[in-house]
């Protein structure tokens, strides 16, 4: 049994898991599509934290490399997602996901 007075891997993984669950809650529960995209960014951040934590505790540099790739792809995903949101807002004048759930024209 480890002493609870030092920071172990489970502390970091708990933060990562809690942040992922918060992001999932945002994706499922929010109406505003921009906030949904922000929650996706939160989930990606939680995964990055888990990657870096495992890489640190396994003495492996691959965790940090994958994290760099995830950050770059998250930036690209945000750019395309926000372009789609701008297009949807021009067509529907609305960001509530209820109003374009049928995806017609």
């Amino acid at each position: 049994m480890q002493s609870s007075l030092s920071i172990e891997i489970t502390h970091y993984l708990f933060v990562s898991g809690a942040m992922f669950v918060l992001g999932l809650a945002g994706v499922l529960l929010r109406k505003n599509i921009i906030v949904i995209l922000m929650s996706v960014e939160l989930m990606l951040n939680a995964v990055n934290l888990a990657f870096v934590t495992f890489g640190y505790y396994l003495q492996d540099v691959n965790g940090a490399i994958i994290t760099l790739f995830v950050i770059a792809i998250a930036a690209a995903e945000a750019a395309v997602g926000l372009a789609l949101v701008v297009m949807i807002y021009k067509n529907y004048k609305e960001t509530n996901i209820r109003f374009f759930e049928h995806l017609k024209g």
Partner: protein
Amino acid sequence: MADIVVFYIFAGISLAAAAGVVFHPNPVVSVLHLVAAMVGVSGLFFTLGAPFIGMVQILVYAGAVIILFLFVVMIFDLKTDGKNPFTYGLVTHYAKLLFIGCLTGLLLSKLLFKLDGFEFQSPDPLAPQYEVRNLAKVMFTDYMFMFEVLGLLLLVIPIGAVALSRVRGGTHAE
């Protein structure tokens, strides 16, 4: 002792700001909470001995992505006059809450009960595994192809974003 305090400060900032992103009704305030969450995660990267990743996190997220989100939210001029910001439904609402609870329980059970079987050596603070030199060595040898593909992706993505959101009309209107 100091590392414990620093960890709890950054973890608290991250989780409180993440909760603010999800639960605050105003999207502008959500974006600002997201900045705080990114900075908190970046601080956690620093405590994990990865200062380069932390700096990239701040530069790319707080510098580029969040500004993009903030501009989109501001040009939409969203009104949040007392409307419920959460989806609702008779059955689906409880189904969503059930899924979130299931994932929470799964993660908690994995973290609290199952992880003791693994052997993680306590990391040597002098081991320079996250030095920029080591990162570059691995990235430009083992991951060279992935790096090139990422460059191609970053070329294609702006073209796609411009093609999606371009204004029809303007100086080239028919």
